[in-house]
């Protein structure tokens, strides 16, 4: 009996940790270093995503493709791997990110070409994020 109780308690604890962990999944992702400290995501905005696509093609497509590795990493699924704040900070503040954020540093070490600072505005970076979200929603 004692063993069963201990076993059940252990299971329950695991389940609780599991549920808590799941709930915390996105919130736990590092937000990176830069101007974007918190970002409340709302429902996907298709018009904004379309603007983001045009901006992406102009400023980013020389180094990034969506579905395949190019000069930099493929970007499909990026909104699942990284916090939205991290993505925008990487666009807006890449030099500092490479210095101070562990993931950004590891990516630089892997790809060797530094993420270029294309000096897009916060508004433009937000639209690029929306474009990534629309890719990942499909």
């Amino acid at each position, binding site marked *: 009996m004692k063993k069963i109780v201990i076993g059940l308690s252990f299971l329950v604890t695991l389940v609780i940790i599991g549920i808590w962990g799941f709930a915390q999944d996105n919130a736990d992702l590092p937000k990176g270093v830069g101007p974007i400290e918190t970002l409340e995501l709302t429902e996907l905005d298709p018009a904004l995503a379309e603007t983001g696509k045009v901006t992406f*093609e*102009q*400023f980013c*497509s*020389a*180094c990034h493709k969506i579905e395949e590795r*190019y*000069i930099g990493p493929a970007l499909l699924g990026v909104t699942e791997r990284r916090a939205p704040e991290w993505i925008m900070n990487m666009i807006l503040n890449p030099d500092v990110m490479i210095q101070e954020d562990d993931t950004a540093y590891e990516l630089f070490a892997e790809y*060797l*070409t*530094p993420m*270029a*600072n*294309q*000096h*897009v505005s916060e508004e433009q970076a937000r639209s690029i994020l929306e474009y990534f979200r629309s890719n990942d929603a499909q």
Partner: protein
Amino acid sequence: MKKRLGLLGFVLALVAIVAITVQAQKTENRLASNAAEQVYVAPGEYDKFYGFFSGGFNGQISVVGLPSGRTLRTIPVFSQWAENGYGYSEETKPMLMTSQGFVPWDDSHHPELSQTDGALDGRWLFINGNNTPRIARIDLKTFETHDIIEIPNAGGNHSSPFTTMNSEYVVAGTRFSVPIPQKDMSIADYKSNFKGTLSFIKVNPDDGDLSIAFQILMPGFDYDLAHCGKGPSHGWCFFTAYNTEEAHSLLEVNASQNDKDFVAAINWKIAEQCVTDGKAETVAANYADNHMDDATGIAVSEMRDSVTLLDPANCEGLAYFLPTPKSPHGVDVDPTGEYIVPGGKLSATLAIHSFSKMLKAIEAKDFTGDSYGIPILNFDNILAGQVEKACLGPLHNEFDTKGFVYTSCFLSSEIIKWNLKNFEVVDRVPTFYSIGHLMIPGGDTMKPYDTFVVALNKITKDRYLPTGPELVQSAQLYDISGDKMQMLSDFPTMGEPHYAQAIPAELVTENQLRIYPLESNQHPYATKKEADVKVEREGSDVHVYMTAIRSHFAPDNIEGVKLGDTVYFHVTNLEQDWDIPHGFATYGMNEANLLIMPGQTLTVKWTPKEVGVFPFYCTDFCSALHQEMQGYIRVSPADSDIALSWNLGQ
């Protein structure tokens, strides 16, 4: 005993001498260490001033940080510059067009910063080309040459490009008088047939665009240097004139005969009125007017066919001659605008003219005669004062805010400091060697900065490690904040810097452009995203629309070019970050490499000479994968039927 005493005395004397020597050395070292501190700029810190030094016979401008003397950049102006493709790229070649065709060199002498209310404003920098008369304007947002205007009816554009106190005009006076208009005639008939011109170049107050407002037709003297009035003397410009003998051969003897030559005083407000009143003539002239189109980044060269010429005989009150000893070089106006200070280079006495006395003399018609109809004022009645036995070979003057004048003396290799109150020399320091111009930041404006004076020397000799027969020029920096000038440092300068100007760094840094925004790039061959790259054929011309970003060109494999084709590489740098240029060069190019700034498009022409596959690559180290930034272009025989194709990463 006497011997011993003698020995003791000798030893004591020796000890005393050693002690004095050591003490003197300590003092000297302390001074040296103090001097070093004043010119030392710690790693990562900035100089307080930008110095702009003319490149003389290299035709460019050197940007030198002061007080450190570190060279920060060369701005290409009148000469091709292989480092960044200036004068080689299709966009910049038109900047060097003249009535004499493409002239990729000149002799640049006098940098002049733009002014507002008689003070430096940090907008533009002007400089003259002496040989094929031209004036250039450099935009201090980008440190790039934006305008070059040719000066017709001129030979040797030396008294140039000095500014009025709001940069309404910069002036251009001819050093070598010529037949106007040019014609085939005997040189022996120089006297009274050759003429000089003094040109007033209008500076558009909004965008700095240069145009020739009018030229004043003057006797055939050599107009050497100039400065315009300020404060009360605003509205006037003053030009030195030597060779009033009108010699045309062996000038070193024949143009040094007259005891006094002239300063020409020109009332440009009266000139404007005479032009308005129709007293000027429109005469045929052929000259180039070149400017950079900001939107496309392509220089445009337009030929002009006429100019407004004003004869002083038709415009009363326009011009006067101020008798001035002897073969004067510089003429400088003090910050109050009252004193006109010539450098009579063959006279040991400096004679200073008074502007207010000059006005009175004009009003009273106190003339001693005229030269070709231009009234000559009475020397004694316009004299403000004289500095007796000032120095040998006084050339040029700059000013501080305390009423002191600093004069460079070529023959005696020194700078003298004297005051405008009693015209007495208060200090002098040697220069190494044979000083030409000198420079105090803002030293020719109404607002000088009492910091330092730079000696710009003509002879270098033993100042630096020898580098064969040819040596760079030497400059020395002297502290002028105290009563006595103190030499702080000595630094080499490139070409022959005739003159320099300096400006507090913050007046320039606040307006600096770091990138060219891609969205504003209206170059007709710009490629703003990688998806748009292409190669097009127009007859035998092949246009490559190419992009560059760390670290690849798109496209990087090109085929279908044939022998006999002319290939234009139009390379757009897609980067939008400061200090990330890319370079471009291909095998056997007869031009120089392109150095393309972020967001910019530049074009280089390439004419393949033989069949083969030729590499191209990025010449400016851009990233860890810079060595991988390369590509190939295939050249097939003229009769080949290989179609144009291009790709990247396939």
